[in-house]
């Protein structure tokens, strides 16, 4: 019985992981010195198709972008969005959610 419960829990966890959607893009943005100015980045990104949420860590110069499953944001695309907002994209990484 214990094995069955354990198997069920593991299966549920595995399936939840499997069906977890989307990708998080971690953007290192230079020039972010105030939250009011960061709104321009939020506005540009949130209008991008497939972007679910945008959050900021101003101390680390990080912009965290969550995109829906199946949506790919390219570096060139993100670089242009950040530049249009008046900042500089220094680097980026991505991780599945």
């Amino acid at each position, binding site marked *: 019985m214990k094995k069955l419960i354990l198997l069920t829990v593991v299966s549920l966890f595995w399936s939840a992981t499997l069906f977890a959607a989307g990708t998080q893009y971690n953007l290192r943005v230079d020039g972010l010195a105030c*939250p009011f100015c960061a709104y321009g980045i939020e*506005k*540009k990104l949130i209008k991008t198709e497939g972007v679910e949420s945008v959050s900021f860590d101003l*101390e680390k110069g990080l912009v965290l972008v969550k995109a829906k499953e199946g949506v790919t944001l390219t570096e060139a695309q993100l670089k242009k969005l950040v530049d249009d907002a*008046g900042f500089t994209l220094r680097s980026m990484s991505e991780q599945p959610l």
Partner: protein
Amino acid sequence: MKSFQLFLAVGTLSLFWGGVASAHDPVFSPGPHVLYKGGVEVHVGADREKAGQERQSELGLELTYGLTGDWAAGIALPYVSVKGATDKNSGIGDLRLFTKYRFWRKDSLGRQESAAVLLNVTSTNGDDQANPPLGSGTTDALLGFTYGYESLTWYRWTSIRYRHNGEKSGENSSGLRRGDRWLVDFALGYRPTFPVYLKPDTVWILELNGERGQRAELNGSTLANTGSSEWFISPGIFWTQRNFAVKAGVQLPIASDLNGNQAESDYRAKLEFEWHL
């Protein structure tokens, strides 16, 4: 002569208005900030200036559009109220068009340094025949350069502007030519608490604003009681939360050299609200 003094005063406040995306710029002087591409800024503000028995107030509406990430342009429509020793008047003032181009930007972690040029043009729609007048009666242009440094804690800015009053001869229909004006500004800003996105953010500002105005002319003759040099110390604040900003400050005169018999400035005050849409 008193009406001429009031005439010369009209448009003074416009020196401080119409800055283009002035969000995280000083209160009384321009900084290099512009608006993100495709962004719209709605700006509502009130200015007030008092010198002796003369008072001038402005309520203004500005709309700014971000043409690119480094270039913005907009329009400002003021409602002016002018009061002299005996007369007073109010109504729509001179419409202003403005643009700012940030030609240099250096970004690093939590810091941005940049420089911009700006141009403001003031139209002639305000009534310059009224008493006191509500408009200058000439098309005026203001050209400026500004540099700014901002970090998560400290800000500093400097700017220089030149205002040319009137096209060609610069005379309005009354034969009056207001003197051109130089403006120079230095400002420091300090953010006492670390900024967090979506949380309220406050920056304290202290500015030093200098002005030098040339003498005015009436039908080619220089007017003795015109032209001045003035320095102001200007404490201010800007408070923001996400896409909404409030700015306020007061200019207090600390030194002046006024030609002839002119009233010294008592104070200038400003309150502004901004939304980025």
